[in-house]
C-alpha cells in the first residue's frame, strides 16, 4: 500500500516537474497569440457582472462607468472565480496606453495582438539553423580528398603512417564534430518538440477556458443580476394566488419549468414533479394555479439582451409563508 502510494506520489511529482519544465519556460517565451485571448476573456468577464447595472438600471450610466474604472473587481459574486486568472493581466500591461479600463479596454486589448506579432516572426528564425546541420554532414567527404603521393618506401610508409594517423585523427575529429553537430541538432529538435507541445497545451487550455467561460462567442453578456431576479420574482409574486387555507399547504411546493421567447413571453410552463401530479389532487390544483400564474404574468420583465441567461427558468412556488 505504502509502496504504491510512494510510486503514485513520485509519479505525480515527476509529471508536475516535467510539466513545469516543459511548459513554464515556453510560457515565459513569446507566445503572444494565446495570451491576449485569455486576457480578452478576463477583461470582458469583469465589467459584465451586472450587480451595478442592476442597482442602477437606467439612472446613472456614467456613474457606473466611473465606478467600474475605479474598482473593476467589486462586481458581484460571479466575478471572483474569473477574476483570479487575471494573472495574465500583467501581460495586458502592454495596453497601458488605455488609462481608463472601461468599455474602451476591449477594443484596445484586442489591438495589441498585432504588436506581439513581430515577436512571432522571430521564432521562425530557428528553422534556418536546420540547413546548418545538413552542412556539417559534408565533412566526411573530405576524407577521400587527401590521397598521399609515393616518394620512397620508408618515407612513403612513414608518410603513409603519418597520413593514416592524420587521417585517423581527422576522421576522429570529423566524427567528433559530426557527433557534436548531431547532438546539437537533436537538442534543437527536442526543443522544437517542447515548444510545439507547449503551444498545443496553451492553445488547448485557452480553448477549453474560452469554451467554459463564454457560451456564445459573439455577444459576451454577464449573468442576470440580483435586481433582475428580484424584478422577475416580484412580478410573478403579484400574479400568484397561494393555496390559502388548504390542508398541508406548506408541503405544496410546486416547481414549474418555464421556457420563454426572446420577448420574455412564456412559451411553455410544465410541472417538474409529474409523479405527484398524478396522485395528489391538492398538489394538482396548486400546480394548475402555478401554471396559470406563469401565463397570467407573461411576458416576464427580463433584460432582453441576456436571452441566453433566461430563456429557461425553474420557478419554485413555495406557500410555506401561509403557515408562519
Amino acid at each position, binding site marked *: 500500500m505504502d509502496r504504491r502510494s510512494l510510486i503514485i506520489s513520485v509519479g505525480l511529482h515527476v509529471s508536475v516537474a516535467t510539466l513545469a519544465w516543459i511548459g513554464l519556460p515556453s510560457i515565459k517565451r513569446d507566445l503572444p497569440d494565446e495570451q491576449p485571448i485569455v486576457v480578452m476573456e478576463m477583461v470582458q468577464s469583469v465589467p459584465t457582472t451586472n450587480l451595478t447595472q442592476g442597482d442602477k438600471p437606467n439612472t446613472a450610466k456614467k456613474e457606473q462607468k466611473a465606478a467600474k474604472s475605479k474598482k473593476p473587481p467589486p462586481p458581484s459574486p460571479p466575478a471572483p472565480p474569473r477574476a483570479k486568472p487575471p494573472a495574465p493581466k500583467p501581460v495586458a500591461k502592454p495596453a497601458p496606453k488605455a488609462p481608463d479600463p472601461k468599455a474602451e479596454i476591449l477594443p484596445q486589448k484586442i489591438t495589441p495582438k498585432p504588436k506581439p506579432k513581430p515577436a512571432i516572426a522571430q521564432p521562425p528564425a530557428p528553422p534556418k539553423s536546420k540547413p546548418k546541420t545538413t552542412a556539417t554532414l559534408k565533412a566526411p567527404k573530405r576524407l577521400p580528398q587527401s590521397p598521399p603521393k609515393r616518394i620512397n618506401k620508408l618515407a612513403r610508409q612513414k608518410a603513409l603512417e603519418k597520413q593514416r594517423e592524420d587521417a585517423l585523427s581527422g576522421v576522429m575529429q570529423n566524427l567528433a564534430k559530426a557527433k557534436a553537430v548531431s547532438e546539437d541538432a537533436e537538442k534543437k529538435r527536442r526543443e522544437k518538440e517542447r515548444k510545439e507541445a507547449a503551444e498545443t497545451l496553451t492553445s488547448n487550455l485557452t480553448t477549453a477556458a474560452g469554451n467554459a467561460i463564454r457560451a456564445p462567442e459573439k455577444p459576451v453578456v454577464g449573468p442576470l443580476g440580483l435586481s433582475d431576479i428580484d424584478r422577475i420574482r416580484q412580478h410573478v409574486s403579484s*400574479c400568484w394566488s397561494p*393555496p390559502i*387555507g388548504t390542508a398541508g399547504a406548506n408541503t405544496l411546493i410546486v416547481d414549474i419549468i418555464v421556457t420563454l421567447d426572446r420577448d420574455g413571453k412564456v412559451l411553455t410552463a410544465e410541472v417538474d414533479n409529474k409523479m405527484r401530479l398524478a396522485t395528489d389532487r391538492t398538489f394538482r390544483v396548486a400546480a394548475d394555479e402555478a*401554471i396559470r400564474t406563469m401565463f397570467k404574468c407573461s411576458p416576464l420583465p427580463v433584460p432582453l439582451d441576456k436571452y441566453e441567461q433566461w430563456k429557461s427558468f425553474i*420557478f419554485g412556488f413555495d406557500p410555506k409563508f401561509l403557515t408562519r
Partner: protein
Amino acid sequence: MMMFLRLVTVVAACFGLFGNIANAQLRIDITEGQVAPTPIAIANFTGPDGVVSEVGKQIAQIISEDLESSGLFAPVDSAAFIEPPKAPSIRPNFTNWSPLGVKGLLVGSAYIDSAGMLQVEFVLWDVVIQRNITGGGGNADQNAVRRISHQIADFVYEEFTGDRGYFDTRVVYVAESGSQSRRLKRLAIMDQDGHNHQFLTSGADLVLTPRFSPTANEIAYLNYFNDEPNVYLFEIATGRTERLGSFPGMTFAPRFAPSGDKLIMSLAQNGMTDIYEMDMRTQAINRLTQSASIDTSPSYSPDGSKIVFNSDRGGSQQLYVMDADGANVRRISFNQGRYATPVWSPRGDIIAFTKMANGQFYIGVMNVDGSGERLLASGFLVEGPTWAPNGRVLMYFKQQPFETDGSGGDTHVYRIDITGFNEKRIITPSDASDPAWSPILR
C-alpha cells in the same frame, strides 16, 4: 508525451465541467403571493336551443352566491361579459373572456324535459391556460334546482381550491323565540346558505346541542321531556324521535362516532359527570372517564382513535385528549382562560374550541397537541363551533346584547374561514344558536 496530453485533456475537461455548472438552469423561488378571491365567470345556463333559460339563470345565480359566500371566489357581474353565454358543447372564444381577468369560466345548459325532469350539463374552462378543467351533467326533480346548483358549485370549488366543496350540505340548529323568561327553543334545519328552512320540533320541550349522524339522516340532541334532560334521536325523513338509553341521571352533549355505530355523551350521576360511549345497536353504555370533576363535550377525531373533551379536573376548565377507550388522558390547553366545546376538525389536524378570557368569549383553533392556538372570532358571547365537512370553515353562534349588562339582544349563527377572514351571518327566520353542520349529502 502521452501523459502530458492526458493531463491537458483532464484540465480541459475540468473547464468544461465548470462551464456546464455556469450554464445550469436558473431557479427563482416565489415565496409570497396575493391573497385574493379567484375571479371567475359564471355564465347563465342555456336551454336546448342555445338561448338562456329561466332555470339556467337561477342555477347560475345560486352557484355565484355559493362561491362568493366562501370568500375564495369573486364572480364577475354577467353585465360585463363580452360574449353571450353559449352551450357547453361549444368551445368559448377565450379572447373574449381574458380581458375580464377571470381564471375560470363556467358554462352549462339546463332545461325541463318532456317528462318534467331537470336536465343539467356544465363545463368548467380554465381561461388562462385555455383548457377544459372539468364537466358533468345529470338530471333531478324540478324542486332540486338549488341542490343541483350547490353540487355544481362544489365541483368548481374543488377544482380551484383542492378541497371538497361544502355547499351541498345542511345545518341543524336551535331556533329561539319569545322572551328570555319564556324562551321557546325548537330544532330547525336549513341548507348551509339559510335556504329551505324547516322546523323539526314543535317547541313543546326545550332542546339543545343537536348533532348530525355521519349519514346526515339522524340527529342526536338533548331534550328536556317533562323537565328531565336526556339524549334523543331524531330521524329526519320520518320525524320520529327516540330516547337513547334509559338510566338514572342526566345525559347531554351527545356526538356520533365517525363510524356511526357509537355515540359519546356526558352522564351526570351521583354528583359526578363523566363521559360514556353508547353502542347504537344495543344501547349498552361504557364509561370512559372516572373523576370527581365535570368531564363533558366529547368529540372524536376523524379516524375515531382519539377523543377530545373539556374537564375542570385540573382546577379550571381545560381541554384534554384521550384514546377512544379512555386511556392516556393528557391536557392540551395551557394558555390563560377557560376552554370549552372542543370539536375535532374533519381534516384531523386542528381542534376548534370556545374560550373564555378577560371577560370575552372567543372561537379559536389549536393543533391537536395544544400548540399554535389562534383566535378567529370574539364577542360578548360566541360559542358552539361546528366544522364544515371539508374542515376549512367554522360555524358558531353569537349573542350581541342590547344592554350594557348583557341582557337582551339577538343571537345569530355565523360562519368564518379558518384563516379568520370572511365572517358572514347566516340569515334565519328567528334567533338561532347551537348550529351543527352536516356531512356532504349523498
